[in-house]
């Protein structure tokens, strides 16, 4: 209590201030864009090979209703896949923690699901569920990709409970549910949040790859916009779609990092600022 923990959002004594840490990469980015613009103009590069940033911005302004509609669809699939992976991964890991037999029997299959390249099972999933509902196929494929980091991290977390704390709960006759709620879940939380950060990015990758393979359903996601733009040689639009995908990925990463910081900053080493 003597030393209040520093606010993690405040700049610490170490390293440059927050303003500089933002300003430097932004300035670098701006310089690169300027150089890009200049080189495209200087060498007269055709726009179907490499469009200038100004052209991409132009295309963005023209097509933004279509692009944002696609962004929303990709976003929906990604978030839904992530949430399904989260709930089912946590549930299965909890089941594993209750019985070694269950874990022993099921874990190898979870691994098989993980190591099989998703692109290779996409046509199969598409035939099974996707002929009428392509979105469902996309959702399943993205979920499969996002599932494993949650399962494996949560399983590891539930097992990493301090031995003496286990004994303490034994001594006070904790029920299985009390042990899970008061000890195992909180112990596993830092592991789970680490898994979620990986899984959030993978859900987006899964959604994009699945759409590349499966094509679009009733709505068209960003991945299909990219394929479509490539086919029509609308390269500036393709870059605009790419930019949105990157922004979505960054958004997911930042949101999950913020969640991690919020949940752990009071007690976990990973989220604390030290003064020395």
């Amino acid at each position, binding site marked *: 209590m003597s030393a209040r923990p520093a606010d993690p959002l405040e700049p610490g004594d170490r390293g440059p201030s927050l303003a500089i840490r933002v300003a430097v990469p932004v300035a670098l980015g701006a310089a690169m864009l300027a150089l890009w613009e200049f080189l495209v103009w200087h060498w007269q590069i055709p726009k179907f090979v490499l469009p200038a940033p100004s052209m991409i911005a132009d295309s963005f302004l023209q097509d933004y209703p279509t692009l944002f509609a696609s962004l929303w669809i990709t976003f929906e699939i990604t978030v839904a896949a992530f949430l399904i992976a989260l709930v089912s991964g946590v549930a299965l890991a909890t089941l594993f923690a209750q019985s070694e037999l269950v874990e022993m029997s099921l874990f190898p299959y979870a691994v098989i699901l993980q190591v099989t390249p998703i692109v290779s099972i996409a046509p199969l999933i598409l035939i099974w569920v996707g002929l009428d509902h392509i979105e469902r196929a996309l959702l399943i494929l993205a979920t499969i990709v996002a599932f494993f980091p949650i399962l494996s991290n949560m399983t590891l977390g539930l097992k990493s409970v301090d031995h*003496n704390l286990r*004994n303490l709960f034994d*001594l006070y006759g904790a029920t299985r549910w009390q042990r899970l709620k008061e000890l195992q879940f909180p112990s596993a939380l830092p592991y789970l949040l680490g898994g979620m950060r990986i899984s959030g990015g993978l859900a987006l990758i899964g959604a994009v790859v699945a759409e590349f393979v499966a094509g679009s359903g009733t709505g068209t996601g960003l991945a299909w916009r990219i394929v479509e733009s490539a086919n029509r040689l609308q390269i500036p639009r393709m870059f605009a779609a790419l930019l949105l995908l990157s922004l979505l990925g960054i958004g997911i990463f930042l949101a999950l990092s913020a969640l991690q910081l919020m949940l752990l900053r009071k007690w976990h080493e990973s989220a*604390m600022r030290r003064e020395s």
Partner: protein
Amino acid sequence: MAVAARTAEDSRGASPAGEAPMPAATLIGIERVSKVYANGTVALADVDLSVGQGEFVSLLGPSGCGKSTLLRLIAGLGAPTAGRIAWPLAGNDLAHVPRGELGFVFQEPTLLPWKTVRDNVFLPLKLAGMSRREAAERIAETLRMVGLENFAAAYPRELSGGMKMRVSIARALVTQPRVLLMDEPFAALDEITRFKLNDDLLRLWEAQRWTVVFVTHSVFESVYLSSRLVVMSARPGRVSADLAIGAPYPRGEAFRTSPTYNEHCRRVSGELHRAMGEASA
């Protein structure tokens, strides 16, 4: 058990601790207990020991003498390979000892890092089904006892090693146990903090007279604290000496610097050397 404990306290009150060991009702009877681990290590061999109501018993010995193992067996964390641990005042079985009657303090503070000091101390009561409101008064009182009333809302990481240990002790005391089992609780602390915690522990013990079984590898600490001192030898672990430390309580700085204290330390040191000699022979 409660009734018998009162009787023991009364008899102690009538005759303050003298040179002779106190005839107290046996609370824990360790009867020919052996513990062999799966890898073949014999941690304990034929240990016989009885702990009386209200005693402060230290188990002292070199590392590997099985003193921590013995403490864990008493707490029911594992079963003896042979022999038994009897609780004569509770139908001879730990299963009949109510959960809260036994407090355990680990070598590490063993706190839940995501809970505040208050909630860490609340834990045993919560696990017993008590609501936060019912427990509030008792938690506050226990925190006062260990001198942490101003740190109830702090998280463990904000505390020093000594303060974490105080939280750990408060957690063990909050159920108002009759037996306190302590596994080298102060071993990781600096000497100044340790002296302070020794004094505080003794003060609480004198006021409440639980029975304490205290595992340590420090001769000085065990002499200072204990009413009785059991020296153990290693490989296999067995009892090698059982000594009464007859100095009266309350003990304080005066005792720590007295010739009697030195005399006891010398005697215990000798016994410890003998125990270690036995082990290597």
